[in-house]
């Protein structure tokens, strides 16, 4: 019994996630029924169209790529007890700086891409440094600062695009005929889809997060500070230094996501009236993934499938895409409210009572 409980606890993150996903889909199904659609056909269309053709699989992976990176960004900050809601802004500056490096420096092609990716990550780190530093030195809440940094990023980016990069137009010219991170071989394997090397950056990011957190001195400190800052202080760690570092690492993942998007998918920047949402989706990914590296992959994959498959579902089953946004939102609500623990708890309780009675 003891070991069973221990095992259940160990997988409780995964249990919570799976139960929440199912409940979220049930909510979506109820909505579809109420609106007169057939949920079975709709979900069928969604998954089939997201996964079963090489082209669709490639496009799904392309959708997943930035979600993994922004998910990692939110997750690693959470691990240190910080809520980095500024992933969106860090994503935007990563995109911006990567684009500038790729178009303005005139570096040789391959080096140019590598430098652009790295500089995009660094730009995100710098954007994360500001709220981290203010939190550590002045005690300002990171949520407030990073929200403000999001707006600064958005409008700074728009300003630079308008006045410099696009020379007065609404969008910049493309970096090259084809986005620099897109390679033909990969594209051809996946039926000519827009999949690009960014997915490898994302997977490398997952490995880096795992290794950093669980195999390095720094990771030990980050986790200790996240779990118990008072004990970390007692142990001689610098809580402030770890807060700043955590926000910078988090920001660099977000910056990489931005760099990979502009260098791999779009290839140009345009003036945006609102946030992209990819950064905010990272919060959902981290939450569903339980802030673990592997969990982030799974959660990003699910949201990628829903997002991409949802578009096709609209064509094939005639169900509006908004339903999918409701499903995603419902899943997040169920995770946040930790509904599954209650269900599992009630189940255990009933079993216990029966045994006694």
């Amino acid at each position, binding site marked *: 019994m003891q070991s069973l*409980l221990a095992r259940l606890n160990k997988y409780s993150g995964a249990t919570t996630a799976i139960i929440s996903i199912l409940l979220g889909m049930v909510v979506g199904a109820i909505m579809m029924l109420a609106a007169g659609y057939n949920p079975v056909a709709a979900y069928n269309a969604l998954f089939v169209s997201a996964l079963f053709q090489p082209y669709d699989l490639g496009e799904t992976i392309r959708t997943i790529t930035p979600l993994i990176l922004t998910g990692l960004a939110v997750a690693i900050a959470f691990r240190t007890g910080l809520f980095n809601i500024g992933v969106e802004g860090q994503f935007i500056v990563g995109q911006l700086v990567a684009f500038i490096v790729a178009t303005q420096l005139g570096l040789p092609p391959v080096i140019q891409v590598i430098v652009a990716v790295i500089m995009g990550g660094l730009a995100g780190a710098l954007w994360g440094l500001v709220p981290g530093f203010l939190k550590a030195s002045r005690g300002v809440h990171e949520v407030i600062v990073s929200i403000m940094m999001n707006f600064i990023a958005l409008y700074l980016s728009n300003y630079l695009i308008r006045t410099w990069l696009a020379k007065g137009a609404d969008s910049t010219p493309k970096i090259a005929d084809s986005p620099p991170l897109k390679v033909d071989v990969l594209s051809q394997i996946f039926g000519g889809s827009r999949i690009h090397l960014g997915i490898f950056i994302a997977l490398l990011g997952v490995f880096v997060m795992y290794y950093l957190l669980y*195999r*390095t*001195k*720094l*990771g*030990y400190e980050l*986790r*200790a500070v996240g*779990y*118990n800052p*008072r*004990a*970390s*202080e*007692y*142990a*001689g*760690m610098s809580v402030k230094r770890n807060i700043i570092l955590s926000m910078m690492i988090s920001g660099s993942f977000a910056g990489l996501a931005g760099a990979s998007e502009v260098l791999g998918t779009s290839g140009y920047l345009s003036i945006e009236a609102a946030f992209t949402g990819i950064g905010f989706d990272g919060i959902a990914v981290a939450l569903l993934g339980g802030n673990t590296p592997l969990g982030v992959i799974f959660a990003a994959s699910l949201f990628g499938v829903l997002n991409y498959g949802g578009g096709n579902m609209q064509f094939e089953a005639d169900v509006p895409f908004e339903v999918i946004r409701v499903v995603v939102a419902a899943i997040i609500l169920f995770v946040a409210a930790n509904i599954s623990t209650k269900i599992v*708890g009630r189940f*255990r309780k009933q079993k*216990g*009572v029966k045994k*006694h009675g």
Partner: protein
Amino acid sequence: MNVVEMIGITKRFPGIVANDNINLAIKKGEIHALLGENGAGKSTLMNVLFGLYQPEEGEIRINEKKVMITGPTMANELGIGMVHQHFMLVQPFTVTENIILGDERSKGGILDIKQAEKEIQKLSDQYGLKVDPSAKISDISVGMQQRVEILKTLYRGAETLIFDEPTAVLTPQEIDELISIMKNLVKEGKTIIFITHKLKEIMRTCDRVTVIRRGKVIDTVDVAGNDENTLASLMVGRKVSFSIDKEDAETGETILDIQNLVMEKGNGVKVINGLNMEVKAGEIVGLAGVDGNGQSELIEAITGLQSIKSGHIKLNKQDIANQRPRKITESGVGHIPEDRQKRGLVLDFTVSENMVLQTYYQPPFTKGMSIQFNEIDQFAKRLIEEYDVRTPSIDTPIRALSGGNQQKAIIAREVDREPTLLIAAQPTRGLDVGAIEFIHRKLVEQRDNGKAVLLVSLELDEILKLSDRIAVIYEGVIVGWVDPQNATEEELGLLMAGSALEKEAN
């Protein structure tokens, strides 16, 4: 007649059974002790009686009538009052205002404070509480505040009073007074349930005692005819020894030397006010004092966790005041913190990870950037064996261990680093008799190995038993040094209450 009867009470929490088929019968007019180690289920049982928890099974009878107690208000109506360990008083309010809070009786919408004051004065006189109804809470002593809590229950018509660990915050003199108050209450027809793990107080106060161990009632016995040893073995489940063998101290050089230490809180109030003390190699210095007289601040100053305003803190002749905690740890200070869960451990880390909390960055635990879990695991295995830390495995989150085993883990970690100065703050608070025995032996062992040990404790027994010299702290200064061989609890108690200072002032 039984005023309170609890029959077959079972209360479960996820993963544990806090109360397992408990039967408890309280006779009218007795002082009935509820004895058990921390986590035995005493507080859960009383929270069930007070209506804060609903039991899964069992029934409660008040005055031999079956009742369902759905909340504290209902418990009050049934004549049950609780004197909480942590007072629930509004500091800027007067005694009367605090007592009527939540039970305000008004005349045509206007609060009748005068009438309430009269009633409270009457209650206070009847039970010998000597409380001034018009005094402000912030102006009266902790002992007096506790009496306000007692009055609160009486004002609401309590017939049965539950005292939850009432002596934890009191000086020895205040404890004496509390005990006589309890006896007065019983004389006037009240019934008392006394939750405690202190055997001495039970022997002095109670008529009967119910012993609870791991959620089950072990026995209910008369206090008369039993002694502390029997009660202790009932509580722990085996024989325990109370005394400790130790040779006279062989002291060496001064290890810790504190001169004119001054510390201020944020608002400029001096919490340490020109404190001087020293601890030599090979001795245990006990720091006695009522909680909140600057003990915590002193420890945090020595360990670098709080900065000081002025003065010197010398460790082996090096001034370590206002250094960073890591520097101080590295220069040979071990620290068993008073709040083991908030300061001493990262509860979500494994046992293994907690064992290297201050040393993880040093070889062999870290090579370059990467942490060497194999080395850490081997180290942790050795420590849990040597210090008898009972854990399912070294990979278990330390949160899952009992308080005693968590504390043993901290002690293993701190002692194994071979510090020249070991600070032990409340090292046995809340622990069972077995763990206390073990920890006391370890502290004496450190002293015998020539380490300087500073013991800070609110338990006078512990201070008297272990210390070679006792320093008494009062309002941020050492008001006297006492030799434990000749000291009595009364003498210490007077010093702790600041009476030496008052004498000087007179």
